[in-house]
């Protein structure tokens, strides 16, 4: 899992309020982060400020079914299909943003496919 986090776009390590101004960062990417946070907030009925880019799903109380619900909401909002490989490796807000970004930008997800197939110690254990 650690290896995957390292592949995230650099801006994701920073807290959301700063990215809002778009300082030194691409407007598109920032919007994705904000939109994902907004979706999670809405679907989980959480107060503003609770969901941060570095929050894990576990600390937000998001269980496996909640995660599937968030995926569904992202698919609806962006009018896309999110492959299972991304879905199964989505355990944090940053992973959600990363996965979504990759789909939107048509990026390679072969590393996630490999992980989803259990070819890495970080293979998903979600049922």
């Amino acid at each position: 899992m650690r290896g995957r986090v390292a592949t995230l776009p650099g801006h994701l390590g920073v807290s959301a309020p700063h990215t809002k101004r778009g300082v030194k960062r691409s407007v598109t990417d920032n919007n994705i982060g904000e939109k994902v946070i907004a979706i999670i907030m809405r679907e989980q009925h959480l107060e503003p400020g609770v969901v941060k880019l570095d929050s894990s799903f576990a600390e937000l109380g998001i269980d496996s079914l909640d995660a599937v619900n968030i995926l569904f909401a992202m698919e609806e909002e962006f009018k896309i299909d999110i492959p299972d490989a991304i879905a199964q490796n989505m355990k944090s807000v940053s992973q959600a943003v990363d996965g979504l970004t990759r789909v939107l930008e048509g990026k390679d997800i072969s590393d996630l496919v490999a992980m989803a197939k259990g070819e890495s110690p970080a293979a998903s254990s979600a049922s």
Partner: protein
Amino acid sequence: MRRVVITGMGVIASTGKDVESFFSALLSGRSGIARISQFDPSALTVQIAAEIPAYTPTDYFPAKRLEMLDRFSQFALIAAREAMQSSGLEVREEERTHFGVVVGSGMGGAQTLDQGYLNLYAKQATRLHPFTIPKVMHNAGASQICMEYSAQGPSLATSTACSSAGHAIGQAFHLIKFGMADMMLAGGADAPITYGMLRSWESVRVLATGNGDPRRACRPFSADREGMVMGEGSAILLLEELEHARRRGATIYAEVSGYGLTADASHITQPSVDGPVRAIRMALNEGGVNPEEVDYINAHGTGTKLNDVTETQVIKEVFHEHARRVAISSTKSMHGHVMGATGAVELVATVKALQRGVIPPTANYTGADPECDLDYVPNQAREKPLRVAVSNSFAFGGLNAVLLARRFE
């Protein structure tokens, strides 16, 4: 032999959102049937149903919880809460594995499915909401109640159309009687008032139209009856092993003493006489009750031509001469046919009748059908001391459930 008593009851129906208002509506002959409000029924031949009036889900559940609850599960939880509250039961940690839940449902999460398919087929959606399955499954109501009350014992859902709740309560009764549980929440829940369901039932041609005068649309056993009226709601009863109830000083509403279940094995919709006859006899036999001892029958009494004639024949065959003396009523004339919940809703009415010594009437009765010539307690509630009562559920599919209840003495 372990005895089983009812120590809590809850109901949400068109005629009342708690047991007291529900039963007082029945005693006054007040029907809960009205024009459908959940969607525009103008295109339908049948535009009436027994809906829960002025129902606001957020009065009962927080928004996040509601996302996981189809309307039928909401009703199940609301009825279960009243049952638990009225029982005063507090389940101790070590008792949880002897506390179970059985909830019948004929249609499960019909509204969620209907809405999902509307999006899928008509609005060209390419995916359905991920909560669709956990909301639609027939055991959702039972499982939600298990979770709310940490009931970890024998639990299941029954689905036998209009007998679902009768079977649910019967199974719960036996689970306690035969030692697998000490406390059971049992009943039924259904919320089938959707465009798709109405269209489906409409085409079976068993629904009363009665659009001009909804309150009088359902007239069981009456010569001018037109059919049944679909309803929604739930009733849940707390069944408890007698000594367990005594030890905690519980108020005992009635005893469940017999359960009969049979299959007609003859026709998928047309009722037989033989199947229901055997079910009633089985219940009487288990309860050690002679037919002459039965004071009141809460009839299946749907108000269709076929049911009411057949049920009358059934009662004559089981009770012989006593059939002319026993009081029979169909409370469906008021709360409608609550589908998979109806047996539980009617058992609540039956238990209240036993407790209070007053029989809720068959409302909207206008005149005798030569083929329905028994005492159906027409239009007026009747005060009468009651000791033993039978509640009938005869379903499409020919699967019958009969419950025998007696005043606790």
